[in-house]
Each structure stands twice: as structure tokens, then as C-alpha cells.
């Protein structure tokens, strides 16, 4: 008890310095937590993927479409429960900055496979009645203030021209991991236009979403589908929805790796700051340590004193940081994060990492000063002038 009291008093003798050190520690650990959350949020799209859904696309690359009649051929393969067309639209609403994803899908088939999107019955009926109707996710609606009945003008980039949609339904997420930051509309609306203007591009699908009745047969069914179209004009590549989403993330993997790397640099920076504080503290108190030794306390006691002080500062910083990370992440998400991320939740593992990092900084920062304090000769130490 006496030992702890001594450590506590020591830690706050240079109040300003200790406060600054703790502040630095808090800033770095919160930054670390945010960066980890950024990385995790990137993978959110893959997390919501279902094991029973496959994506079939053109094997050359996503830019190539598939003939529409593939749907019936895929449907006839054993184990396939449903097939829906999904077509990336890539239009721009207002300006490029307010980007959101739009997909042309065959609405009834598509949403039958996505029970995680919840519709109000009357809105669903309206959506089915209006060929120019669009369904908007709750997060997207909240972000830009869209309401049911709003007109939504979108400029096409892949399908040129100005497109008019009417928001007929706003769907909700069944659970927290579900992303509702996108828009769906009737594939028929797009297809009718293409039939008139660009007949060559009509009756084609960007990808097919395929539902299988047994997740354990996903790999086998994927191979069957691809074999069905081997050596044809449009060969296919079928993979699970999760693998499909991850292939997008893989494209920007370099950037994610950089963020990971940088979040560890933060820890090193704060280690330097904390180690600096401990080094100065120990140097100033060399005289005191020598005095303690003269009184009969051994080197281990002096070393423990330095170590405990450092760990205490680390612990205070760590606790404050963990308490602050949640609110800061929430604030970031509410203010600017919503335009980039669909979800931004601090994962429990991130808190654990923060705690470990705080502990590690506390331990490592004390290493050199501990050694110095323990090894100081009594005479040299007493003679030492700060």
C-alpha cells in the first residue's frame, strides 16, 4: 500500500509533464482505435454476405455483361433455389461527391434472396406497381434526407442520359451488420430503354445472384455453373458473395495495409513520448534513488518503483482512451463518416488492442530508466546534480 502511494505521488510530482504524457497517450490510442475501426468498416460489406448466395459474373472482368438467357440455364441446375439479375448502374446524383451505389435488379426475385432487407407492405406494393420506382436503403435515406414519393434525377455514366426515378419504398435492415446505403430499381426500366436505344446491350445482366439451398454445396454448384458455360462466348466465374465482396476490397488492399502500418507507427510515436518522460523522470531522481539505496532498499525495489510509475501512467492513458474512443468514433461517423462508410462500430477486439498497447507502452518506456536507476552507484548518485 505504501509502495503504491509512493508511486502515485511520484507520478504526479511533475504534474504538467505527467498530464501531457497522458494526453499524448490518449490521443495516440484513440487514433489507433479509429484507424483499426476504419479498416474493419471496410470489410463490413463482406461481413453481411450470406453463405447461400453466389455471384456469377463474366470471367473476363466485371465490365463485361452476361446474356440474359443464362438466368434460365442457371435456374435449371440442381441445388439452385433462385436466380436474380443485378446490374451496376453507376449513375451520379447531384454531383460526384454524393456518391451512392445503384443497382438495376429484377425486384421480386432479388429481394426474395435478401430477407435482411425489410419492406413495409404498402410501400412494397407501390414499388411493384411503378416501373420507374426505386427502393432506397434506410441509411441512404437518412444521409440525404430522401422521403417516399421524392423524385430522384440521376445522370447516367454507363447508360447515358438523364434518368428519373420515384422513391417508392425505403427498406430497413433486419440486423446491425446489414448495409442499407444503396438504391435498387427495376431492371425492366433499364432494359426497355436499352432495347430502344442500344439494342446490342439489351437483355444482358451485369451479374447473376444465385441462391443455393445448401451452403455446403456452394463450391460444387459454382463449378457446375461455370462448366455449363465453358467455351462459350461469355464464360462465367462463380464465387460466393463473400469472395466477390472481398475481391473488391483486395483491389484497395495496398491502402488498407498502409493504414494498418500507420496505426502501428502511432504506437511507436507515443512510445517515444512516454519513454522520454520516464527517462527524464529517472534522471532527475537519480539522487533520490541513491538515497533509497543508502537506506537499504535493493536495486529491484528501485527498478519496481520506476516500472510501476510508468505502467500507472500507461494505465491512466489507456483507460481514458478506451472511454473516449466510442464517442469519438460516433462523432466522426455522424459528421463526415457517413458519406464514406455504411457502418462504423468500434469492435471489442479494438478495445483489447488499445489496452494491450497501453500496457506495452508502459512496460517498454520503463526499460532503460529502470536499468539505469537500479545500477546507479550510491556515491555517484548522491553526488549527481540534476
Amino acid at each position, binding site marked *: 500500500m505504501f509502495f503504491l502511494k509512493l508511486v502515485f505521488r511520484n507520478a504526479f510530482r511533475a504534474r504538467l509533464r505527467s498530464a501531457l*504524457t497522458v494526453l499524448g497517450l490518449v490521443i495516440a490510442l484513440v487514433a489507433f482505435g479509429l484507424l483499426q475501426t476504419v479498416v474493419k468498416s471496410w470489410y463490413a460489406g463482406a461481413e453481411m454476405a450470406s453463405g447461400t448466395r453466389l455471384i456469377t459474373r463474366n470471367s473476363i472482368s466485371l465490365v463485361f455483361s452476361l446474356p440474359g438467357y443464362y438466368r434460365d440455364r442457371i435456374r435449371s441446375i440442381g441445388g439452385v433455389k433462385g436466380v436474380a439479375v443485378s446490374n451496376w448502374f453507376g449513375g451520379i446524383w447531384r454531383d460526384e461527391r454524393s456518391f451512392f451505389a445503384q443497382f438495376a435488379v429484377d425486384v421480386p426475385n432479388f429481394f426474395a434472396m435478401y430477407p435482411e432487407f425489410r419492406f413495409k407492405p404498402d410501400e412494397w406494393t407501390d414499388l411493384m406497381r411503378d416501373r420507374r420506382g426505386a427502393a432506397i436503403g434506410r441509411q441512404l435515406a437518412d444521409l440525404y434526407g430522401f422521403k417516399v414519393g421524392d423524385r430522384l434525377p440521376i445522370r*447516367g455514366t454507363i447508360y447515358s442520359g438523364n434518368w428519373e426515378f420515384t422513391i417508392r419504398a425505403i427498406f430497413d435492415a433486419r440486423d446491425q451488420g446489414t448495409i442499407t446505403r444503396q438504391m435498387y430499381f427495376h431492371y425492366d426500366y433499364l432494359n426497355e430503354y436499352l432495347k430502344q436505344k442500344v439494342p446490342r446491350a439489351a437483355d444482358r445482366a451485369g451479374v447473376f445472384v444465385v441462391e443455393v439451398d445448401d451452403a455446403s454445396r456452394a463450391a460444387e454448384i459454382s463449378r457446375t455453373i461455370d462448366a455449363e458455360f465453358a467455351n462459350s462466348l461469355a464464360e462465367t466465374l462463380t464465387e460466393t458473395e463473400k469472395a466477390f465482396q472481398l475481391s473488391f476490397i483486395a483491389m484497395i488492399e495496398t491502402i488498407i495495409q498502409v493504414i494498418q502500418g500507420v496505426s502501428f507507427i502511432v504506437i511507436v*510515436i507515443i512510445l*517515444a513520448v512516454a519513454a522520454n518522460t520516464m527517462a527524464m523522470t529517472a534522471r532527475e531522481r537519480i539522487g533520490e534513488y541513491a538515497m533509497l539505496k543508502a537506506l537499504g532498499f535493493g536495486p529491484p525495489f528501485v527498478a519496481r518503483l520506476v516500472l510501476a510509475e510508468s505502467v500507472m501512467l500507461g494505465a491512466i492513458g489507456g483507460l481514458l482512451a478506451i472511454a473516449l474512443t466510442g464517442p469519438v468514433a460516433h462523432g466522426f461517423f455522424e459528421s463526415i463518416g457517413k458519406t464514406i462508410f455504411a457502418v462504423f462500430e468500434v469492435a471489442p477486439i479494438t478495445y483489447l488492442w488499445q489496452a494491450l498497447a497501453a500496457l506495452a507502452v508502459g512496460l517498454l518506456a520503463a526499460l532503460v530508466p529502470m536499468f539505469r536507476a537500479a545500477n546507479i552507484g550510491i556515491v555517484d548518485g548522491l553526488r549527481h546534480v540534476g
Partner: protein
Amino acid sequence: MQIPLSYIARNLWVRRLTTMLTAGGMALVVFVFAAVLMLDAGLKATLVATGSDNNVLFIRKGAETEVQSGVARDQAALIESLPQIARTANGEALVSKEVVVLNSLPKIEGGKRTNVPIRGVPPVGLTLRPQVKIMTGRFFRPGSNEIIVGSSVARQFAGVEIGQALSFAQRRWTIVGVFDAGRTAFDSEIWGDAEQLLQAFRRGGFSSVIAQLATPSAFDSLIDSLAGEPRLTVDVKREKQFYEDQSRQLSNFITYLGMTLSVIFSLGAIIGAAITMYAAVATRTGEIGTLRALGFRRSAILTAFLLESLLLALVGGVAGLFAASFLQAITISTTNFQSFSEIAFSFALTARIVVNTLVFALVMGLIGGVLPAFKAARMKIVDSLRAA
């Protein structure tokens, strides 16, 4: 009277461990700051260098990239007849009608597939891009199933060595050469014969049309001609502008992310500097009193401590910049979401970045040192001498 600089430098030297740790923390922050600027500069240099001021690029109205665009044959013929376009001695228009598609290829590292643009180029396309040179092998023969790969593609993707073949669109395409495009976006592309690729992919029209202007200043009158030609449904941009626009999103992303990180990290480094300088002031209270008693003014004390902090920051800044300069050897490859294809670029260190980085380091030193320096300058002679 000024306090000598050697006195300031020696003070840093006496507390080597502390100086090293503080400067080290700053060096890391500076490293991140410089790395971000270098990455952004590298990306811009690559994409901006891709375009030429003399060339213009036509894509379908509303399209943002060549892959999204489609220019029908009759439209391309209309473009050829525009008066602002340069012609050879035989009267042929310097117009390259090209097709760009994406093919997903596995990377050597990790085997993940990403999109590589395949560009079908007619012979005139090479005249418009004098920077493209064959490194090994030879150019593809016009009218054949031969392709050549850019140097970045050759480095990063599997199965693209000379003599190997890629299978797509029901044909085998033999690789006969590797080309270097002088660190431009073309280095991340695969080139083949335009007509062969059009047929293989069953495309009716081209993706884009690239043309050389008769004179660089003809651009404005070209826009007027386009406005007066309702049959043409294309947008035109200077080639340089087109590639600059392609870099915008990725460049903004790198800059926003990097600057946010730098600001947060710099808070840590400033705190580190402040702690060090407060400690320096505290341990040298007696010295400060002595200096004052010797006749040095408050302003001299203030300047001395500020200079010490700036010197500390400079050491960190130079160390960080030195470490960052080695990044120039690294090439980053990532997907540009605007063109939806892989692009390789390196970190580029420019004189401007050196200056900005050092200023950034000095500002950190100044902010960290200003309060401790004022504390030192405000000390009373008697008190500080008594404290010693």
C-alpha cells in the same frame, strides 16, 4: 546580445537519450507526412505525364472513363473530318480509334485478381504516344493476335512473360514484347491490335478516339465545332486534363486520409517536444538565472529556448525526410476506382515536398517550444538563482 548557438546545440547533446526519443517521435510524424505528400505527387506525376498537351480525347457524352464510353464508327469518322485535327503529309488525320476493355489477371504476389486495361491501338496510336518504347521483344504485328504488356504489368502480374499467352474472348493472345511508357499510366496496360480486339469482343464501336491537334491552341475552336455538330454525341477533353481528372478521387482520398493522420500524430509529437522543453527549462533554472545575471536579456533567453526546440524539430525533420527519401524505390499498385483498373505509381520526392515537410517539422517544434520558452524568459533572476 545573443546566446551562442553552440551552447544550445550542446544542451541537446548532453541529454542524448531524451533528445533522441523526442526527435525520433517527430521523425516518425514527419515520415508519415512526407510519405503522404510523396504518394500524392507520385500518383499525379504518373497520370498527368500520361497525357500530352497536343492530344485530345473524345469519349461518349456523360461517360467518365474510356471503359464506360462507346464511340460508334460513324461518330469516329465525323471526328476525323474535323478541321482542327492534325494531318500527315498524305492528308491522313492523326486520329487513333481505340478500344479499352478490362481483363482481370492474377497478381504475382498473393494471386488476387485485379483489373488490367487492355487497349486496342491502331498503328497511328503509337505516333500519338512517342513516350511508348519497347524494352524487350518487339511490337505486335498489326492485324495479328499478338499483344505487348506495359512494364508495371510485367512486374506485377503472373503469366505475362514474353512467349506466354493470355486466353480471353475465345482466342489466345501471344505476348511478344514488354514496353516502357516512361512512368505513365500506359505502363499499367496491355496493348494489342484495335481491329482484332474489336472483333474478338464483338464490339460495334470504339471506346475512345484520340487525336492530335493541328496546333495546341486549336482546342477552343474544336469545342465550338463540336457544339455546331449535333450528330456528334461526344465529350472532348485535352488528354492531359482527362488523365488528371482520373487521378482526382484517389488523390483526394490519399490527401484527406494522410493529412488527418498527420495532424493527429503531430499533436503527439508536439506534446513530446513540450515535455522535453519543459524539463530542459526545469533542470536549467539555475543556469537561466546565471545567464540573466551575466546580462543576457529575457528576449535572449526566449530566443535560445525557442531555437533549441526548433533545432530539435529540425533534427527530427531531417531524419524523417531522410528515411522517407528511401520510399522512392517503392512502387505502389492499387485499383483506381474511377477507372476501375489497377494503376502502379511510385513515391515522388519533389523540392516542394522537402520544403513543406521541413516547415511542418519546424512548426511542430515552435508550437511545442513556445510555452516552455516563455516560462524560462519570465523567470526572476533572484528566484532562479536561489532554486539552483
